[in-house]
Every structure is written in C-alpha cells, then in structure tokens.
C-alpha cells in the first residue's frame, strides 16, 4: 500500500530531511522523490510505502499537515488510490 506526500510552496531547504524523518519515525519507507515546478507551483512529491507502518495513517497525515503549517507550506498526504482512480480509465 502506498501513499503520496506532496509539498507545495516556496523553496524549502531541509524539507526533504524533515519529511523523510517523519516517515522513518512512523515506519513508512520512501520509494521515490520527484521535484517539479509546474505553473508557478514548486512541488516536491514523495511516493512512500505505508504497508509496514506501525501507526495510523491518520496520524501521519496530521503530522505532515502540522509540519507544513510550521514551515509555511502545504503538505498533502494522500493514499495513492485517489490518483490511480481519477486519472486512468
């Protein structure tokens, strides 16, 4: 089972370290990281494996959201199913 963590906002030194730190703490494994600038949005997108997570997914979501608020970014943490289902026939 996988999820996608998307960080959107201004340039962010150290954010990769902080986000992957939370993942490691909660038992989520980072599979892939992409960075992109799309229509003035700077985005860092991380695909993570949550199968072995030892905590609730909701807790991960909350921690990521709070981190975003602290740093003035928006961090979305979403189960990958939503992207798969919306964009493929």
């Amino acid at each position, binding site marked *: 089972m996988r999820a996608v963590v998307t960080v959107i906002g201004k340039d962010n030194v150290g954010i990769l370290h902080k986000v992957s730190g939370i993942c490691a703490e909660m038992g989520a494994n980072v599979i892939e990281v992409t960075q992109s600038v799309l229509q003035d949005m700077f985005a860092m997108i991380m695909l993570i494996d949550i199968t072995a997570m030892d905590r609730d997914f909701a807790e991960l979501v909350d921690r990521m959201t709070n981190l975003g608020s602290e740093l003035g970014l928006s961090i979305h943490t979403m189960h990958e199913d939503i*992207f798969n289902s919306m964009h493929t026939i």
Partner: protein
Amino acid sequence: MLNVYNILETIRMIQDECLDIRTITMGISLLDCIDTDIDKACDKVYNKIVDRAKNLVSVGQQIEKEYGIPIINKRISVTPIALLAAACPNENPVKFAKALQRAADTCGVNFIGGYSALVQKGFSAGDEALIRSIPEALAVTDNICSSVNIGSTKSGINMDAVKLMGQIVKETAERTADRDCIGAAKLVVFCNAVEDNPFMAGAFHGVGEPDCEIHVGVSGPGVVRAALSKYPDASINELADIIKKTAFKITRMGQLVGARASKLLGVPFGIVDLSLAPTPAIGDSVAHILEEMGLEQCGTHGTTACLAMLNDAVKKGGVMASSTVGGLSGAFIPVSEDAGMIDAAVAGTLSIEKLEAMTAVCSVGLDMIVVPGDIAPETISAIIADEAAIGMVNTKTTAVRLIPAIGKKEGETLEFGGLLGSGPVMPIRDKSAAKFINRGGRIPAPMHSLKN
C-alpha cells in the same frame, strides 16, 4: 510510477477549485420498524438508525484523512415516514420527526431526509396525515427534511395533492417566519422522484432499495469551470469533451470514496450521484460555468442551451467512471446556493420563467427560489403543477423547493446562512390560477407512459 502532473492536478482541484464530496448518505429501511403503537415504532426507528449509522460520521472523517478529500456532509435517508404513519392512523406523525431528530443528534449527521409521502396516484393511509403534519414537523426539528411526490410519468399528476402542497409550503414558511422561513428550505415537492437520491432536501430511501446502503454525492462546479477557462476559443463540442473528462475524474473520486465507505461501514455500496452541486462559496458556482461557456450573465438567452450541453456532458463523463450511477446526476440550479445565480437574480437577468425552462434540461427543478411572502397558496400550487408537467411529459425528475418570504417582497432578501446561502425575493406573475387549482382531480398520464 508517479505522474507528477496528475498528482498536482488532483491537489489543485481540491485546494483551489473547491472539489469535494458533497455528501455520503446512508439509506436505511425502516420497514421493519412499523408498529401500530407509535411509541414503539419511534423507539425502533431510533434504535435502527443509530445501530446502522453510529460510525457514519467517524468513517467519513477517516476517509477524508486517507484521501485528502473533504467530505462536506454525512447524512441519512430513510423510508418515507408516511408508510410508518399508516400503521398508527390516530396519532400525530410529528412524533416520528422527533425520533428522527434524536437519531440525527446521536449520530452527528447534519440531515435526515425521508419525512415523506408518495402520492402520485392518490392518497393512501398515512399520506394525508403525514403531509398535513409537515409544517409542524419542520418547525420543531432542525435536521429533518421532507418531500412529497405528487406526480409521475406513469401515474400523471395528482392535482389534489398539488392543491394541498401549495397550502403546506406556505404554512411551513409561516411557521418558521421568525427563522427566515427555513422550514420551506427543507421541503421538496417532486414529480418522478428517485428512490436513491443522496442530496437533501429530497432524499428518501425508496422501498425498492436494500435494507441499508451507502450513497455518494459528488460535486465540483469550480473544477469544471476552471477546466473550461483554459480553452477560451474551443468550439462547443470541444467544451463538451472537456466537461466529460472532468466529470469522469470527479465521479471516479466519488466511486473511490463510496467503495471505501461501503467497506469500512460493512454496508453495500449504493450509487454515485454525480451532480454538480454549487455552494455560495466563491468559485463553486454552476452559473459561472454557464458564463464561462460564453454568456454575459446566467439567465440571458442561450442559458437553456448551455445548461443542456453541460448536464448531458456531465452524465456522459460520469457514467464511464462508476459502476453504479444514480440519484439525480447532472447539474443543480439552486438559486440561493449559487453565487452566480444570486447575482443574476438580483440583476434581473434570471427570472422564474427562465429557471422553469432550465429545469427542462437539467437534473432538478425550481430549487431554493425565494418568492414574495404574500404569494397565494394557489399560485404555489400552480408553479408546482408547471414543474410537474415538465417532468411528467419529459420522463425526468423535476421538483419545487420554493421559499415564501413571509413579510418580505420583491427586492428584499432572505438569509439562511451556510450551504443554503441567501436568496433575493423573485417576482412572480400576479394573475391567479386559483380556479384551475381548486378543481382538483388528476392530470392523466401522458401517451408515452403506455410503453409496454
């Protein structure tokens, strides 16, 4: 692997374009709660609803967290209460409304729909008592919605019921005149009502449905408008294609949420209703989609054509995305709940006559329309009859949710707040239809109802 574009598009739809799941609605059959002792029946009603729906709100919140999609409302629809009232003929059906209210409070849902009667061919036991109790029921409860089906393509239009409903709508507004006539905002009069609609105020759990199921009502007018705004020079059929693709994505989200809710609640998945349902929030307007298509203001000439195309393209895109599309599915045009509609009504560009034409090509009917407080009940009935005729002849669902603004006249406004928005009092014709309405009887079913 990851498609960056798709991920950012999804997030933009949710964050900037007001994409959301408008409601997850649990439909619950109360047929096994029927009892000749009304107090026992009310207990059974309360217990069954709480038993089935106690986790509805928490599951909704869990899914919101998992997928990052807002689920705005968690609601319940039940068997038309007239069927339960039929077993207790000498009692006041308002007791059922109060039981439903208690269940709504316990479960934390924001509406329970189904204080309803189906009288398209005539009145049966329980129907008239239920209907006459509606003004009181909607005045003494906050979270109960009511509906009455007065016609169908197969049955024709029950003009006795139409006459009665004109009075009931007026009385419901009068009973809640101190609260901006909010009672009338919770009452819908239908023709060709559907049994699995998840949206309020017209939701009820039809008798042909299973014991319990979960429906999803999606939305996303902002998403559609934003998609169209990227193509200012596209031809109309190219716009239709864009709408279809957008509707596909929106509906897929609804399908995903519905399937997940079904699994978590242990209840069968019912339908996805892929209606574009506006809210008064900026960027969440159906009228603005029509204006994006090229109308200077919604309500001007060309509006009916644009809406016809939009409604059809939404359905086509959505049908591919889901295994079971149902409910009303299309575009909603509730005036008080749509910022663009409100502006158009205030400016005088959008009239009741134009809205009536629009209802012939979209999902619902004359919805959340505020009319002068001194409107005659017979005029309300005549408006209901007009809408019902459109539905009956065109084999589609139509409905009327009119709000007589007691004590107010054209030019003034009613403020409901929240998702129900605010509405300018719209002008109506002053010549009377009282003689026609007072005849009573039935408008016979049209020729094409004889399809066998």
